[in-house]
């Protein structure tokens, strides 16, 4: 009998159809895997299921345990025993394991917590998930893998009927991942039904009884493990969309080797034992657009930011060369002076001073370029901002508009303007088209092509594989902090990239 049946679920955001008639059936007592690319709609589907998007905000029907389910919020779905564990853990680091497990659900009478009972029950739950820590240990003091187990213990404390794990192993080391997957199998033996969302097909094959593949907000296939799961088949289903003319034409003849990074190693800034980047070496030629493909959490942003003035990580080692000579990138201003620019993936938090004007943001990374001594030439600044507004087609009534008032695409262009004004030789673009509409994407692609035509080297990080395939001359594939492959444009395909990622 199906424990859960979601029928023809559709969910529309302004301008985007995130889910289009998706159906999902989960049998009682099984582990069901949902796979798909970033942005395919997996998380949206789970948000519909858990009531984050309450009944009425989506179309379609949910039947849970034989009853039609209409959740008004996440507490409704939890009451029914549907518990979701998100990718970003929702634990309070300063509280103990026991306090976290019973947060909002304390063992208390008249508001007074019974600590003996709390700790005893915590011990039982921890034994169930195989975690040997004292209930009073602060969550901050245990690693990510153990925190994941605490989350599961918390779910078990709530009498879970359906456990949903959203990319549970994304932040885990190999053996921690294996432990977690084994725990899932054990819970299954105890009768707990779970859904796992994952990119890692070897893991999916290891635990899943059935698989639903989602692509572009639609269900592509339902596969049964009993009939045998083929990774090739899953990969094809995940990425198999046709490429239309979404990219401006380009004809590039890359020149000499411009930028080269050798043996780059980076450790996590807080967890000193975690190596984030493992011996990465790559290069970019003049006039070349090079892509870095990989899943979220594979270390692409960390790689870029650690190169750009050591803005991420510690114990960084390796060398960076430009025009064949080693350059000093030990601080952001030195990296900029050497000719490196990094356009962040998070323009609002890291790219712009939102309360300031377009002019202010355009010149921020190169104030020397608009000043004599240290006195700003504000009129010249205005002309420069105006020039970039024209060249990049930033749609705004004036360069004195605050950037907070601009659309995502225009904000991204302001960030690009800021970095172009530093006259870089190498631009590292991190998710340059994230969250902007199709028209603006095309314009950004055109800008990138112009940069390459100008002889600059472009390193482009993206989660959208079609974008990399449509834009890049060469693609490096990154997985778990290491560059696991390099493909020329003519041999690259989504299937090949995916299989490089999943066949670690």
């Amino acid at each position: 009998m199906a424990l859960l049946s979601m029928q023809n679920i559709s969910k529309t955001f302004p301008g985007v159809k995130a889910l289009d008639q998706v159906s999902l059936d989960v049998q009682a007592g099984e582990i069901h895997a949902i796979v798909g690319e970033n942005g395919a709609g997996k998380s949206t589907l789970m948000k519909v299921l858990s009531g984050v998007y309450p009944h009425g905000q989506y179309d379609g029907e949910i039947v849970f345990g034989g009853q039609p389910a209409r959740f008004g919020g996440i507490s409704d779905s939890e009451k029914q025993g549907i518990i979701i564990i998100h990718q970003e853990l929702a634990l309070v680091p300063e509280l103990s394991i026991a306090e976290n497990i019973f947060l909002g659900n304390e063992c208390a009478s008249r508001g007074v917590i019974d600590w003996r009972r709390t700790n005893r029950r915590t011990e039982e739950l921890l034994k169930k998930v195989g975690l040997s820590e004292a209930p009073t240990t602060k969550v901050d003091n245990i690693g990510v893998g153990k925190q994941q187990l605490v989350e599961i213990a918390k779910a078990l404390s709530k009498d879970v009927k359906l456990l949903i794990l959203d990319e549970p192993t994304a932040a885990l080391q190999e053996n921690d991942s294996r432990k977690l997957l084994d725990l899932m199998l054990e819970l299954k033996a105890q009768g707990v039904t779970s859904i796992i969302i994952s990119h890692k097909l070897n893991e999916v094959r290891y635990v899943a009884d059935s698989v639903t593949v989602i692509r572009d907000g639609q269900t592509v296939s339902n596969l049964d493990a009993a009939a045998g799961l083929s990774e090739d088949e899953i990969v094809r289903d995940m990425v198999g969309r046709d490429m239309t003319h979404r990219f401006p034409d380009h004809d590039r003849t890359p020149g000499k080797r411009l930028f080269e990074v050798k043996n780059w190693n980076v450790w996590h800034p807080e967890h000193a034992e975690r190596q984030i980047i493992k011996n990465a070496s790559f290069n970019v030629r003049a006039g070349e657009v090079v892509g870095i493909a990989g899943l979220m959490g594979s270390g692409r942003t960390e790689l870029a930011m650690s190169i750009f003035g050591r803005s991420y990580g510690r114990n960084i080692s390796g060398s960076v060369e430009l025009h064949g000579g080693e350059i000093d990138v030990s601080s952001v201003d030195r990296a900029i002076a050497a000719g490196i620019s990094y356009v962040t993936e998070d323009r609002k938090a890291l790219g712009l001073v939102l309360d300031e004007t377009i002019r202010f943001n355009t010149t921020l990374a190169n104030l020397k370029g608009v000043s004599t001594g240290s006195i700003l030439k504000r009129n010249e600044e205005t002309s420069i901002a105006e020039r970039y507004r024209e060249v990049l087609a930033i749609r705004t009534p004036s360069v004195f508009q605050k950037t907070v008032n601009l659309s995502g695409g225009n904000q991204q262009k302001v960030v690009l303007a800021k970095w172009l004004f530093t006259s870089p030789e190498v631009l590292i673009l991190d998710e340059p088209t994230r969250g902007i509409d199709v028209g603006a994407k095309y314009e950004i692609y055109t800008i990138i092509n112009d940069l390459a035509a100008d002889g600059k080297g472009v390193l482009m990080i993206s989660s959208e594989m079609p974008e990399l395939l449509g834009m890049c001359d060469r693609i490096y594939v990154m997985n778990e902090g290491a560059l696991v492959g390099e493909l020329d444009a003519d041999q690259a395909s989504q299937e090949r990239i995916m299989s490089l990622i999943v066949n670690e």
Partner: protein
Amino acid sequence: MDLAKNDSQSTTTVETKGIGEYLSSHLRQYGLLFALIAVMVFFQIVTDGTLLRAVNITNLLLQNSYIIIMALGMLVVIVSGNIDLSVGSVMGFIGALAAVMIVNFEQPIFLTILTCLAAGGLIGAAQGYWVAYWKIPSFIVTLAGMLVFRGLSLWLLQGQSVGPFPKEFQIIATGFVPDVFPAVLGQGLADLFGARQVNVLALTTGLVAAALVVWLGLRQRAQNKVYGIEDEPKSFFIARNVIVAAALIFVMYKLSLFRGLPNVLITMGVLTIIYAFITETTTVGRRIYALGGNQKAAKLSGIKTERLTFLAFTNMGVLAAAAGLVFAARLNTATPKAGFALELDVIAAVFIGGASMSGGVGTIVGAVVGAFLMGVLNNGMSIMGIGIDYQQMIKGLVLLAAVIFDVYNKNKQG
């Protein structure tokens, strides 16, 4: 999406923007000026003209000089996204240091002043070090500093008042700039105005300053036109400049009828101009706004955010020391209680002047006008004989009202 729609909307608003809309989008700047004028008119009436008498205007400037000097540094600290609670204590400590050096140890005045300014810088640097490089919240570091320097003042003065200072030191705060123009000219003008005496230097300074303000305004406006920068409506430009110029001339005229230009006014004026210039037109100023507006983005733009924070606190220390010297010279004695709770007046002035608690927003001129607004309230209420209890309540409510006004304005625009 919604954002794209917003774009097209704002395009149309710019085209149809009238005087009313201009006023509502720049309400904050004009509001502050109007509030100051309204408060002055109010007290001028209820005090039967005492407020704007020459001697009282002189007093008003002297009374608020040290607040304004510190407000300049505080504005920088607050724009950078921090706060300094220690300035009242540091000010008192430096006054004590000056008193001990001059009165007890008979050190030369010039050396004392240099030592005191350096000590202030050192104190600011010490606090800034922990804030900038150790990322300890400035609230905590300077709260600690507030206690430490309050204690140090007590220790240094042995719990007693030390004074009086020699005349040469007192003139820092109580002296006046001698009239460089021939006395005949002053006498002639005095006869013309029907006054007892006229300080020609003060009057001339007022006229020159007024002319300068208008000239700079016109120049900026002409340049804005060349670069197609949206500007305030002409009527506003004229009204604002007439009010500011008239106020300058009026204040200077009043001062000229009394004893002329106080030394402190010159110090204050020059410092205000310097800091306004630094914050508005230098790269350092620009970086401080970026730091306060979005520290991470500033850092990723190559700005040395730690060093900048450190410098903001060091600068604050030097200005607190300068204020301490002025304060001690004005009272002609250093007391262990000097500067007690003064940091709150300074911080209030900066917030009334439109700065934002979260950093990145605020102007020097705003902070100075904010300080004067508080000063006029203090002065006016004292003349009226309103008790200190009511004064505190009213000042508190004015601060709250100013900030509520800010938030309301921001929400309406957002």
